[in-house]
């Protein structure tokens, strides 16, 4: 299966990726290869197979409900590009 330009543009929007027009052909072709591979996988009969949630056959360990973390926001915010009044600042988003 091959993806056209519009498909790739839609995917870029959903994935919040910006690609240049020069990259378009290459990206479309590589993504098409991946879709082809997935389609090939889909031809395998899996009707009797229980979907695998995790490759390890063990159960999730549960944690006791206890507060173990302390306030380290100043340390964590050192690599934020902008902080004001202890808040991370990001370009304005309103839905």
């Amino acid at each position, binding site marked *: 299966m091959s993806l056209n330009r519009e498909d790739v543009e839609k995917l870029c929007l959903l994935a919040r990726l910006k690609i240049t027009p020069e990259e378009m052909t290459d990206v479309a072709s590589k993504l098409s290869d991946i879709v082809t591979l997935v389609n090939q996988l889909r031809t395998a009969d899996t009707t009797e197979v229980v979907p695998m949630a995790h490759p390890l056959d063990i159960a999730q360990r*549960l*944690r006791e409900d206890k507060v173990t973390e302390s306030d380290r926001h100043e340390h964590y915010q050192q690599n934020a590009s902008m902080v004001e009044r202890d808040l991370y600042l990001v370009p*304005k988003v309103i839905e």
Partner: protein
Amino acid sequence: MNWDVVIGLEIHTQLATKSKIFSGSSTQYGASPNSQASLVDLGYPGVLPVLNRDAVCMAIKFGLATGCQISPRSIFARKNYFYPDLPKGYQISQYELPIVYDGCLEIVLEDGELRTIGITRAHLEEDAGKSLHDDFRDHSGIDLNRAGTPLLEIVSEPDLRSATEAGIYMRAIHTLVCYLGISDGNMQEGSFRCDANVSIRSRGEKKLGTRTELKNLNSFRFVEKAIQVEIERQINVVEDGAEVVQETRLYDAGSNTTRTMRIKEEANDYRYFPDPDLLPVIIEDKLIEKLRSELPELPDAKRNRFISNYALSETVAEELTSTREIGDYFEEAVKSQPSVPPKQIAKLIQRELTEALKKNSLNIKKSKVPPEIIAVLASKIQDNSISSSAASAVFEELWRTDSSIGVSNVIEKLGLEQISNEGVINTMVDDIIAQNPEQAEQCRKGKDKVIGFLVGQVMKISRGKANPQQVIQTLKNKLRGE
């Protein structure tokens, strides 16, 4: 044309754990920004989520209380979308194999009719952070304290048929999660929020109409109002010959309208897949049985027991079981004065305590008059030491001052001991008859209404202290020889 309305609710309730669902950060509300966001909550690379046992137990309790199936094996999935208050770029949620599924809740409609509302599923997930859009010029401020707070998303079947029904169902779920102690249910703090899926179809039609989703309704009143205006909007659209578009809409309380937030084509493709950072959760029967044995008495059962054990009317029982705390308060009061009829205590709670709590915006746990004291007050009405109108004044004084000084002392201090002395009442009644010859005559001729007037006059000169029953009896005796 007649229309049927079809509504399903998705209720998000924050679970009352001390720490977050996948990290050891506190979930305490109101802390300073980002002071409760750890590396896991911030989505730093290389960290791993570890599931909170209590969040799992709380979800199971909800499932048991609503007759749900409990999944012996449950998995977490990544729900992918981009928003700055979701630092990982995905929310850990459940998609296939939610922790509980396929249950129901019975609700009582306004006319007393019982309706069973199906619960499709309830799954565990993490809450996102908060975005603050004001005050930062062309930027938004992000507080990630809420990120990772455990949520139980309770999804109903499309079984609700009106905005009112949706409100009743939402209240019933709210009461239930508070009873179970799995959520504080605080709506101002966002602990309990709801999305509504709304559609219409012509009466009798089986096929569902195109639905719209109303997002983030955070009060009972808004849920009902938002659904009502959305139903009206959809009917107008269809009756104008157009079609309802599948979309997400926002309710604006100011204008009481809904508006488009995003249409289906712009909708996120969440690309759910099992989260490789989390293993399947295995729930053993042993744990389920342990939790079942810990379930508190649920609202319906408590209401029925109050009716049969304490001879309360349905409405009184309903009110006294509206929260677990008010039920506990009532029962503690009853227990402390076993000889006082529970109805008498119930009356004081409804008339005096509920009012005082409302006026002071207090939770019953913070009541300034403890249950033992209100029970003593009820006993004073019962043995005719005070009239019920005097009890009101005594209650106010107990509330206002230190209630530990004792009911008898307050009655004495206010001089409100009821006058039951026959001689004193006789004199007062004679005086009133003498002062109101006309009314006394009417009363002699059998006009019952006038007795009320004369009783009122006696109560007035006794400053509310005469025993009203005795006054009525004395008046009847003197005027009619009854």
